[in-house]
């Protein structure tokens, strides 16, 4: 295993201030604190070459976990082993073997061309001038940076900047790439392009990718495994497919009919009904798919039928809303 986390805990202390001026004055004299348990007893491991999605709502503990793993934050308790190293005792040695992209924080110099930042990062990662030049040439080709590599970063579009950010994080050929919301603020075309690049990178170099994202497409298109974290606790660890198919145990049925829909079955909700078509949602925890099909055929003359799973966006929305319907309540492992 390239990454092993066991019983990880991290809390933050946050001052509690009463509202209004009097509250502010009181907090000057006697300050009260609230403990926020950002990460609670999280354990998991990751094999080499895996692309793992680490998802959860805002404030769930995703970024804190990444920061604990990469050595930015100190854990309260628990053990972390990354490439066989303790990130806090061996921070410098570890940073030579991992790459990180925080979508919200840039490691590029705003006023200088990305090429200059690559050059400086090459020195920081102890690469010779020749090695840096070779690596920059490789990454320029893979991430198609040639047209804007010599423009100051402030003049780049967000998509171009993120491509440069990811390339910058790969300058030292890391074995693990941590991507914390890399697609934040990007349009759909650029997102798809960045995804393709990450996928290609994983396939060609075997780099392990640890991804946090709110974007369903990132998770579905890139990762086979997903860990869901909510309120600091890992509530699901399994394949993306399994999460999609079994956790939100519902199907959407689009039917084309020769007359108006005639169906009254427990567990089936009519989402939309028109004279010759209908959209239904079947809750498979309450009704069997076979029963739904039989009832449909028995009472209607069907011209066409299409059964689909719930879109990934909705799966994630359910996770974030912490709904218990549709099997979400059974997640707590």
């Amino acid at each position: 295993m390239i990454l092993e986390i066991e019983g990880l805990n991290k809390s933050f202390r946050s001052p509690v201030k009463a509202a209004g001026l009097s509250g502010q004055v009181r907090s000057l004299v006697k300050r009260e604190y609230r403990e926020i348990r950002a990460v609670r007893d999280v354990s998991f491991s990751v094999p080499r070459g895996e692309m793992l999605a680490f998802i959860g709502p805002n404030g769930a503990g995703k970024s804190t976990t990444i920061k604990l793993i990469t050595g930015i934050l100190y854990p309260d308790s628990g053990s972390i082993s990354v490439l066989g190293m303790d990130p806090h005792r061996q921070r410098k040695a570890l940073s030579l073997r991992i790459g990180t992209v925080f979508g919200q924080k840039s490691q590029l110099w705003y006023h200088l061309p990305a090429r200059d930042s690559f050059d400086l990062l090459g020195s920081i990662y102890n690469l010779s001038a020749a090695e840096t030049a070779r690596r920059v040439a490789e990454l320029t080709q893979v991430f198609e940076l040639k047209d804007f590599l010599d423009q100051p970063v402030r003049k780049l579009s967000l998509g171009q900047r993120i491509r440069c950010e990811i390339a910058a994080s790969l300058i030292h050929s890391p074995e693990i790439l941590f991507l914390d919301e890399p697609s934040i603020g990007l349009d759909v075309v650029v997102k798809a392009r960045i995804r393709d690049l990450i996928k290609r990178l994983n396939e060609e170099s075997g780099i392990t990718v640890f991804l946090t994202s709110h974007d369903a497409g990132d998770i579905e298109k890139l990762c086979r495994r997903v860990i869901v974290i909510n309120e600091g606790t890992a509530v699901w660890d399994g394949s993306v497919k399994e999460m999609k198919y079994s956790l939100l145990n519902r199907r959407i049925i689009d039917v084309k009919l020769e007359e108006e829909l005639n169906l009254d079955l427990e567990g089936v909700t009519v989402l939309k009904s028109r004279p010759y078509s209908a959209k239904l949602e079947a809750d498979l925890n309450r009704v069997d798919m076979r029963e739904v099909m039989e009832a449909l055929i028995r009472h209607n003359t069907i011209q066409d039928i299409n059964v689909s799973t719930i879109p990934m966006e909705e799966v994630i929305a359910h996770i974030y809303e912490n709904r218990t319907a549709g099997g979400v309540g059974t997640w707590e492992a």
Partner: protein
Amino acid sequence: MVRIIGKYIRFNLAAAMEYRVSFLVQVLGMALNNSAFIFFWLLLFEKVGEINGYGFREVMLLWSLTAAGYGINEVFLGNGRFLSPIIYRGELDVYLLQPVPLLPNILCSRMNTSGWGDLAYGIVLFLLSQELTPLRLLLFPLLCLLAAFLFSAINVLYNSLTFYMGNAENLAGSVYNMVLMFATYPGTIFKGASTWIMHTLLPAALVIWIPTELILDFSWEKGLLLLGADGLMILLAILLFRGGLKRYASGNRMGTRL
């Protein structure tokens, strides 16, 4: 690390050159601003002759050491006074993820261009206002360097309090400015408790007064004592920063490197 510091200097200069006019205005503006004080002291000494053993030339030595030491700190260790916002905005992350010594990496990664004006002013003032001997020509750059390290240690020490008390930006800024201000006044005008404060909490004495005395009248004993005290101050700053790192909470604020 030396190679990286060299690159930082080159890069920060290149970044400053992106806005050439602004760079020149800042450098010349700072030199002019400092020059204005020469006339103030000239007029004062014409009236009073001497203040507790300090004449015009001695005060100009205080100014040249202060300006050059401050300038070196601002140019080559320029991120020190921004350490507090770097900590509370969660911007240490980028530095913590790089395989180089943390504090030098943070401190050297920013250059405050107006510092070039201070540095140039300090050197020119020293050369023009002082009686130049080989010993003084050797001591001046060394003591400027030492002053720069101490200015930086003051920045690190007080800004690191952010780890412990939430936001020490204003406190650290005030201390830095007070040390800077007191450094340019003759140390002999301070008596009693204030002298102790100037050797400890607001160490203007360590940064400038004692180095000035060393240039005027060198003694090994005083020189070694100064080195010891400076070393202690720098060590304290490093320890406070390192201890604070364990309390670092990071954050998710949007940010970029300037």
